[in-house]
């Protein structure tokens, strides 16, 4: 007996439907668990006060500051480098062996797992360059990690800028650099911002590469040579050492909420950018 293909079709459709919602369900469950368990322990005092007794009491202020320092400083270093690379790849060369090499470099950097960045940062920045566990070593390691994201998103954004804009600029006798500076980059800013936001999200959530370069000191990092602890590392230590489950959930709420907000903002900007040119 042959089953009517239409029934199979309907069955498959249902099956796929269930699986797609199951996947989204996982996300919702993860976020819901964190929020239900964590919100009772999160308030302004928690965010703004210093931890006591290794984090068993008090808040997470130093780790929030550490996270912001790490994310902003590495963005500050990676954006010019990444944007410059993207401009070079899109505006200054044709596809050649040279650009292939550079693209190979970017792709490879993107594929390296974070523990290998940690291993590299540990031996190069911490030990060979004698930075010790410090904000600086963490920032430099993070800069390399987020560089591929910034390059790729900036490149896409610049490519999406319509040719006509450039032609008009040239016809007004602007030089190439002036055109890029005054026309192309401003038009590509939403796309570039998306890359920056995604990179901040990555820096906020990273643990493996940071714990071996920035260390895990609970003090407020006051200089680049100070060791510090980001929220993700603090959460890891609280949860893994069983120091305090309440504080761990509380930290997780702040951590996950900030990453979600950053990423949502990134997609919002991206969608705006896509809407603009299509």
């Amino acid at each position: 007996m042959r089953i009517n293909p239409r029934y199979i079709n309907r069955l498959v459709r249902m099956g796929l439907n269930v699986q797609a919602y199951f996947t989204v369900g996982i996300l919702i469950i993860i976020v819901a668990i964190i929020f239900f368990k964590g919100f009772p322990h999160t308030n302004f005092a928690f965010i703004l006060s210093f931890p006591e007794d290794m984090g068993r009491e008090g808040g997470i202020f130093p780790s929030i500051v550490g996270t912001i320092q790490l994310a902003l400083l590495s963005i500050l270093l990676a954006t010019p480098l990444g944007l410059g690379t993207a401009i070079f790849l899109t505006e200054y060369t044709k596809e050649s062996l040279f650009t292939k090499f550079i693209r190979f470099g970017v792709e490879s950097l993107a594929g390296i797992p974070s523990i290998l960045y940690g291993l590299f940062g540990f031996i190069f920045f911490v030990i060979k360059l004698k930075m010790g566990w410090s904000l600086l070593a963490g920032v430099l390691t993070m800069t390399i990690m987020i560089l591929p994201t910034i390059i790729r998103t900036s490149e896409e954004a610049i490519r999406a800028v319509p040719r006509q804009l450039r032609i008009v600029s040239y016809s007004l006798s602007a030089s190439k650099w002036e055109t890029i500076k005054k026309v192309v980059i401003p038009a590509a800013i939403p796309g570039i911002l998306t890359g920056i936001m995604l990179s901040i999200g990555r820096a906020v959530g990273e643990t493996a590469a940071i714990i071996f370069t920035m260390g895990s000191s609970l003090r407020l990092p006051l200089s680049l040579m100070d060791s510090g602890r980001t929220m993700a590392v603090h959460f890891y230590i609280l949860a893994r050492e069983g120091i305090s489950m309440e504080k761990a959930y509380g930290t997780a709420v702040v951590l996950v909420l900030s990453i979600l907000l950053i990423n949502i903002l990134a997609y919002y900007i991206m969608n705006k950018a896509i809407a603009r040119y299509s």
Partner: protein
Amino acid sequence: MSFRHWVILLPLIAALLSCSAASNDKPGKKHTVTIAGSTSVMPFTEKLAEHFMVDHKNFIVDVQGGGSTAGIQATINNTVDLGMSSRPLKGEEKRLNTITICYDGIAVVVHPDNPVGELDLDRIRQIFSGRISNWRQLGWVNRKIDAVSREEGSGTRGAFEDLVMKGREIDDGTMVQDSNGSVKEVVATDPYAIGYISMGLVDRKVQPVAINGVKPSIKTIKSGRYKIVRPFLYVTNGELDPKSRQFVDYVLSKEGQKILKNEGLVGFYD
């Protein structure tokens, strides 16, 4: 953001870099004591540092983990003022000065629901070397024993190997966690687990096993009846410098030792 902004921002970063480098040797009259090493000693040193800094406002005590071996190496290289070690020094390391700050028992712990409350040293050795692998062999349910150990290089593992295993190797099937806290978490959640942790960390979440009839406690360690004990050491390269001496003196003072005692460690006063 245009390139002009970056032209402004880059010098700003440079300025930030230089001022932070300068802030290190600003004449703020703050003394920094850097300490690194054993993760077993670290939590207690952090606690001592917290209290120390309350009374000594012009001091910053920076405490880092890294492990006994790394702490000893850092002391040899003069990258820290004090190293922390939870195992005795060996070979080359012996040329460093050692200061015993207190003693710590290593407790063998099981889940609170576990009825096996007593084991002898030989049994523990057999469990961790894989000879005994089922709780039934110890008079409980027919269930595999989930033994938890520490990673290679850990001072607690080193001390456990010296004092308990005595040359017998820890079985490859044993789970491994990288800190006292995470061993304790595994034992606290898995009813069939057994592990070993610093006695100072034992609380209601885990149950210490009596070894040869003796429960680990400050009393039994002092009287010498509980045998699995190791010193917590601070190590220095040569003589103590004056600022570190202030901190070490505090640690060895009655006040400092009282803090350690409250944490379940065995100090020099009663």
